[in-house]
Each structure stands twice: as structure tokens, then as C-alpha cells.
């Protein structure tokens, strides 16, 4: 079982260009990150490119920016993977929406090489549940599908400014809830 401390240790060693640690980190985290990137991009070839890019960046200095204490290492890595995937999505966004594109699944590939304890139960889920369901869906859509204000306005069929105001209010409510 790979613990949070193990992964932290590996990231710190990757920062020192320790190849064994890099290989260990990849073995322990790549399936989770690939899952996240695939969830965002829904395109296997693009997801492979982004995964490669994420690990290259970690190796080439990115790992040095990890600070112990704030984010858990897996949350930090998940943020990087998600952000890189969203960047990629923005560059290649097709005309039509991504709704309804089937998520690729490969039953032959199991998650056996990743076991990471999820220490903090997702507080944000509880707080999103307190929002109007449409608005919670908008926040999730922005985070996981890279939807912009314009995309969300189109999806919920409201003017752009209305969507912006909705979402800003929701973010304030979220913040209040998260700081309770």
C-alpha cells in the first residue's frame, strides 16, 4: 500500500532527479492521473500525450515546486493533471459539445498499481450538495469538463452575465460552507 508519506517522499526525490523515485512515482500515481486526464479529454491518444507531458514537467523541475503540508501529494498531482488536460482541451476544442461522448473504458486494465488512501473525505461534495443542483452541476462542469462561462450559459440557456452572477454567488456560498 502506497501511503501519502511514500508519495511525498517520492516527489521530493524526483525533485533531486532520482530516477528510481521517478519510476516509483509513475508506478504509484500514473493510473490515477491517466483516469483523471481521460475523464476530462475523453480521447485516449490525447490523454497519453498529456500524461507524458505531466510527468516530464514533474521531472524537469515541477516536482521542486511541491510544498509539503498544504495539498496532499495526490491532490497536488491531480490538480496538475486536471489543469494540463483542461489546457489541452481548450486548444483542441471541437465545434460541438462533448456531451454524450462515451467514456473509453478498458476492462483489461485494472487500478492495481494505485492504492492511495483518501485521507480527507471530500468536503466539497457536501458543500456542493447545499447548492441548487444546476449550480453544483455548473461548478463540476467547469472543473471536470473545462466548461467556460459561455459554455455554461449555453448549456443552461441563460444569458452570459446571469451565468456569471449565478456562479459567483455559488462560489461565495461554497466558500462559506468550506470554511465552516
Amino acid at each position, binding site marked *: 500500500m502506497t501511503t501519502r508519506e511514500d508519495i511525498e517522499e517520492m516527489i521530493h526525490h524526483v525533485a533531486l*532527479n532520482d*530516477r528510481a523515485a*521517478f*519510476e516509483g512515482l*509513475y508506478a504509484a500515481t*500514473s*493510473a490515477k492521473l*491517466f*483516469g*483523471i486526464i*481521460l*475523464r476530462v479529454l475523453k480521447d485516449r491518444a490525447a490523454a*497519453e500525450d498529456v*500524461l*507524458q*507531458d505531466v*510527468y*516530464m*514537467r514533474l521531472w*524537469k*523541475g*515541477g516536482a*521542486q*515546486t511541491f*510544498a509539503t503540508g*498544504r*495539498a*496532499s501529494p495526490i*491532490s*497536488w498531482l491531480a*490538480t*496538475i*493533471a486536471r*489543469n*494540463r488536460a483542461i*489546457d489541452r482541451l*481548450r*486548444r483542441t476544442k471541437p465545434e460541438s459539445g462533448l456531451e454524450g461522448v462515451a467514456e473509453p*473504458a*478498458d476492462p483489461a486494465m*485494472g*487500478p492495481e*498499481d494505485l492504492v492511495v488512501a*483518501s485521507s480527507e473525505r*471530500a*468536503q*466539497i*461534495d457536501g458543500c456542493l450538495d447545499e447548492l441548487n443542483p444546476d449550480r453544483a452541476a455548473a461548478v463540476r462542469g*467547469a*472543473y*471536470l469538463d473545462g466548461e*467556460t462561462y459561455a459554455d455554461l450559459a449555453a448549456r443552461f440557456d441563460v444569458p452570459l*452575465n*446571469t451565468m456569471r*452572477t449565478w456562479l*459567483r454567488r455559488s*462560489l*461565495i456560498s461554497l*466558500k462559506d460552507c*468550506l470554511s465552516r
Partner: protein
Amino acid sequence: MSDESIIPEDNDDVLAAELSLGLLSGDALTHAQRRARTDLRFASLVEDWDIHFSSLTETIDPVAPPKGLFDKIKAQAYPESPQRIWKKLGILPALIGAGAAALVLIIAMQFGNYMQPTTPVASLVAEVVAEDESIIVAAAYVEDSQTLFVEWQVGDRIPDRDVELWLVADGDAISLGVLSKEGKVTEVSIPAELRNLLVGGALAVSDEPLGGSPTGVATGEVLAVGPITTL
């Protein structure tokens, strides 16, 4: 009463959340990203949101990447790359991308004074990035020694060609010479008459014949461009 009045434009928490979610675009995005790099309090708000939102990925099932992928990564990663010089300069290249760029930079202290009598401090940096981010060249200028340190970090070099570095200022491109091969840091001494042009200028790299452009202007494709930023 308009809805906007209820939510002040300068609500940093909201702005940080918008940046973290990726909702911003255009000038608003540029402005917020700059703040995340320079304003530690704001950067920490963005990080708080990053942490909260990242737990939305907890329910996503892992998917094993294809077997050969890590071999490709290793092949690309293991040509030696001198990260140490960046540490000595007290900066780290911005490698993380949207939202999390905040986590970068800073940190001279940690590589402190026991290494050498005076730690060189970079005053200007540039990240020279191709439009599709297939190429990243990082640069940092150290005032004390009037030296620009440049490293080709990401991207394939074209065989039997050189990469030439250009300072773009006031509409002119001035050659700063060719870059060392991949994995080596190039040190460029900046002559006095060019120093003032760095602030507000940009760096660019172009594909050139071996030895650099024979004409003094870029003859090949401009591979990547990036503005020079004051730290």
C-alpha cells in the same frame, strides 16, 4: 439593482475560484495569473480552491496507461538536464501550467548562503513557449553579472540545425546568439546597450542553419515567443 453590485468585482476569493476552475479568459485571465505569481496571499487562495476542487477527482477510477508510455517518458527525461543552476538562481521555471503557476518561483532562501558568498538573484524571467506548448525555453536574467541564463527544457531539437535566441524590443529582433544543445544552460552576456530593452521586451527562438542566421535576421521558422517579466 443589478446583480453585479452584490458581488464586488474585487472579491479575491471568487476571482481565485474562477482562476482555479478555469473560467477566466482574455485580460482577466492574464491579470489573475500574474497576481497568482506575484501576490502570495492571492496565490494561497488559489491553492485552497485547487485543493478543494481536486477532491472532485477522488471518485474518478484509475485507468492504467499503456505499457510503453513510461519508456517514452524515460527516453525524453533522462538526457541530463542541469536543474541546479535554476536552484542557485533562486527561481524555478514555471512548469505547472494553468492555475497552479502560483506554486512556482520565489524561494531563494531555501538554497541559502552556505553555498556561496552571494546567491545570484534573478530580476527578470521569461518562459518562451510554442503555441502548442511543444517547446519550452526558460530564461532568467541576473543583474549582478549581466547574464541571461537560457535553457531549452521541453521539445525536440531539429538535427543539424541550430536554435537562435532573439531579443524582441521596439519592433526589432536582436540576435543573442545560438543556444547550446538540449540539456545545457546557455549563458548570454548582455551588453550595456541592450539591458534597458529587456524590461518590457520579449524573447523568441527561431530555427536556423548551424551557427545561426547568416543574415542577422531570423531566416527560419520562429519556434516560440515569450514576454520578459520582472520579478
